[in-house]
């Protein structure tokens, strides 16, 4: 199976993909029937209509649009942007993707896909709560420490948080995009995208180079996220969300789905809670994820170390080296997110005194400040 495809075959597949990337099951079957992508493009309208079970008009449209599409120019654009296009026969094409129903017939990749390490998908809502942000950060950071590649979708919210936490450790993370490689969506993630590549990760998509985000891209993208990963972790998301689509696709692909439990009244935790009710594994720390990973991919950090790390994150150990004043402020904030006024009211201290202590705590990376609110650093 691993014989390299000819240049013309690859160009033909790029053409077919450009027309039908949203229905790779359909064109996959077509290629099978005709023997190769080249033959598909040489076929008559009637042949395509009959074998592809589409109307004559669609078949005509298919042939005219594929013949118009300049696959060589597409190849040039991708390589100019530092990327490449892979077919299933390519050495770098991820093995795990070949096993899913309807694998993408070609894959646009920027960055490096090697070496193959165990991958875990981390997905969640675009509008996470503070809890979701914190959990996603902690989990993906610990996964990165275990040399597990975190796969996500580079969308706003949980996806970006998961990528960023890995980047902070200069580790590998893969992002599967809902746009072509030539577009960045959401626009604010431009820097994140380049950091993913700089740290040895990759951007992956089956969508032609210059296509922007379309609603139907994302469920397709989610099947690749699930397909690339050994298991899928859902951090936060309402019942009707992309995260749950990914979970569903992972299950269809016969893969494990784990979920982070949340408060029962939190709308963003509805999705994971319902997954848990339906039998998904529960995630309370990165250890829970690591336990599900088979022995041959044994993580490079021992479980003992992870347990120790969990302990280090507790308040007691952080509070150890603080002065009395700092401790008072630290304990006052607790798990909350407070502004200077609230802290000064609670402690009944003057604003200047609170400010000075907050500076020390922030300078020592114990607190972070965002839009005037202080909270414990994750």
């Amino acid at each position, binding site marked *: 199976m691993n014989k390299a495809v000819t240049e013309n075959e690859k160009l033909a597949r790029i053409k077919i993909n450009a027309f039908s990337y949203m229905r790779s099951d359909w064109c996959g079957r077509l290629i099978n029937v005709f023997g190769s992508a080249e033959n598909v493009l040489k076929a008559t309208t009637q042949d395509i209509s009959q074998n592809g079970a589409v109307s004559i008009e669609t078949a005509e449209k298919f042939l005219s649009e594929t013949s118009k599409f300049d696959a060589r120019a597409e190849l040039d654009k991708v390589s100019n942007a530092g990327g490449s296009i892979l077919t299933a026969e390519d050495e770098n094409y991820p093995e795990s993707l070949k096993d899913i129903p309807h694998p993408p017939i070609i894959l646009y990749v920027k960055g490096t896909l090697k070496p193959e390490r165990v991958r875990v998908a981390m997905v969640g809502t675009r509008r996470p709560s503070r809890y979701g942000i914190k959990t996603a950060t902690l989990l993906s950071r610990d996964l990165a420490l275990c040399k597990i590649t975190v796969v996500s979708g580079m969308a706003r919210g949980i996806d970006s948080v998961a990528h960023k936490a890995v980047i902070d450790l200069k580790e590998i993370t893969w992002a599967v995009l809902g746009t072509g490689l030539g577009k960045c969506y*959401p626009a*604010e993630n431009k820097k994140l995208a380049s950091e993913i590549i700089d740290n040895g990760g990759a951007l992956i998509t089956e969508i032609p180079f210059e296509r922007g985000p379309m609603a139907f891209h994302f469920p397709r993208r989610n099947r690749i996220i699930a397909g690339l990963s050994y298991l899928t972790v859902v951090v936060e998301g309402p019942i009707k969300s992309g995260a749950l689509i990914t979970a569903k696709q992972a299950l269809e692909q016969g893969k494990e789905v784990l979920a982070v439990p949340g408060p029962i009244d939190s709308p963003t935790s509805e999705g994971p809670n319902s997954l848990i009710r339906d039998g998904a594994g529960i995630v309370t720390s990165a250890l829970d994820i690591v336990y599900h990973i088979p022995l041959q991919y044994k993580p490079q950090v021992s479980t003992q170390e992870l347990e120790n790390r969990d302990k280090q994150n507790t308040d007691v150990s952080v509070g150890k080296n603080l002065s009395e004043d700092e401790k008072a402020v630290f304990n006052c904030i607790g798990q909350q997110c407070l*502004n200077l006024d*609230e802290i000064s*009211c609670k402690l009944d201290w003057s604003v*200047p005194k609170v400010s*000075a202590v907050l500076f020390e705590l922030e300078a020592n990376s114990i607190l972070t400040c*965002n839009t005037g609110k202080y909270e414990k650093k994750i």
Partner: protein
Amino acid sequence: MLAKVWSLGLYGIEGFIVSVEVDVSGGLPNVFIVGLPEAEVKESRERVVAAIKNSGFDFPLKRVTINLGPAEVKKTGTHFDLPIAIGLLAATGQIDKSAEAKLKNTAFVGELGLDGSIRNIRGLLPMLMALKQNKIKNAVVPNSNGKEAGILQMSSFKASSIREVVDFLENKVELSQCEYEEENADLVSPSVDFLEVRGQKLAKRALEIAAAGAHNVLLIGPPGTGKSMLAKRFTTILDNMSFDETLEVTKIYSVCGKLKENTLIKKRPFRDPHHTASAIALTGGGSNPKPGEVSLSHNGVLFLDELPEFPKSNLEVLRQPLENFEITVSRAKNTVCFPAKFTLIAAMNPCPCGYLSHPDRDCTCTPVQVRRYRSKISGPLLDRIDLSIELSPVKYEEWQSTSPDGESSQKIRERIAVARKIQRERFAGSTTTANAFMTSKEFRTYCKLPEGGGEIMETAMKKFGLSARSLDKILKVARTIADIENCPDIKREHLMEVIQYRSIDRGMVYE
């Protein structure tokens, strides 16, 4: 016959002497006014003719030429009516020869009604100030402007009609002198007080510092957090203006015709232009440039609510006054410089929908929208803001507490007066009046880093991403805090406190 009388003109906010020459000669009856008169000066012809007739004098049926010198400077304002009328009467011999001495050293200003009465004019104060350095010793001003003229305590007489002026010139009656009326009006309007602001300790502290050092402030917070409420009370904690400062402010208001009581303005001005205000409304302008909002808030406060709603180009014009404390208005025919030394208080929402940092309500903005919203305020403008703080909504517990937890404006003002006094002594002999206006030389002399301050600054720059420019600002504000606490030197705590008031520099963390 030729007659010459003195009057005064206005150029920007400076006055100058104008000679009004009236020549009456044979020819077809007509009246010409030359010497670059604007429309309102040209119209004075009709008023003068009627006023002279209705005051019982004769208007000559001859050719009358009126020249306003210096002829190359534009003349605006309605106050040339009186000198023109007096000149006409003198040229036609209707004023006794005995009046000549008085005519020579008196300047006349006033608008005429058709019945010969003299009406209120604008810009009297700066015009009279031009007289102070001149050999012309007396002035005749409208009765209703008397209080304004009295401020300068010079020889000025108030008159209410042409007839009165003529009688005065002929030594038939005495006109009363304009007297300076010392008013002990309550400087602080009793309607607002800091006591009424519940909670918001951080904002109060920041505004106290701002008032003490004349620093510019940016208040960021969701709707209903009291941004405008705080800003409106800011003037109640400012210390009183010196006499020179009140004079400067009164001059500007006089030129704009905004002197309601016709008396000295002692309260620091507070201007809050709406965000639909044009750039010209802010800077001042027009073919005969008049001061805009930045000058009307000279020595006081310019409050810009909903800052990002102001068109970007209108905000950029604030850069010059914020840097040089004056604004230059250039037009094809003239260039005028208006003073504009104000404290800027700006308020904005954290995001377009307003609820980004709200504890209970969800924000519906995307990070791109928020960034676009914040980027409406350019870096150079932000660089000129010394303190920026984030406010959050007042909690129910704070709102319902009947016992006011804060201090009264009076009490805060006393502290600020002390800090201001220290600054006045420090900058004695310099034009600098407050820490915010320090020159770079003064900055180097008075703003020394305390022991261990270098580490704080390094953390601020590397960890919190503050720019080198904002480090200077931090030192200046820290100087003010030290002044409030009556410390000769800046201390580490002062620096650490100020860094908490630079939220806008710290950028936004999106996740």
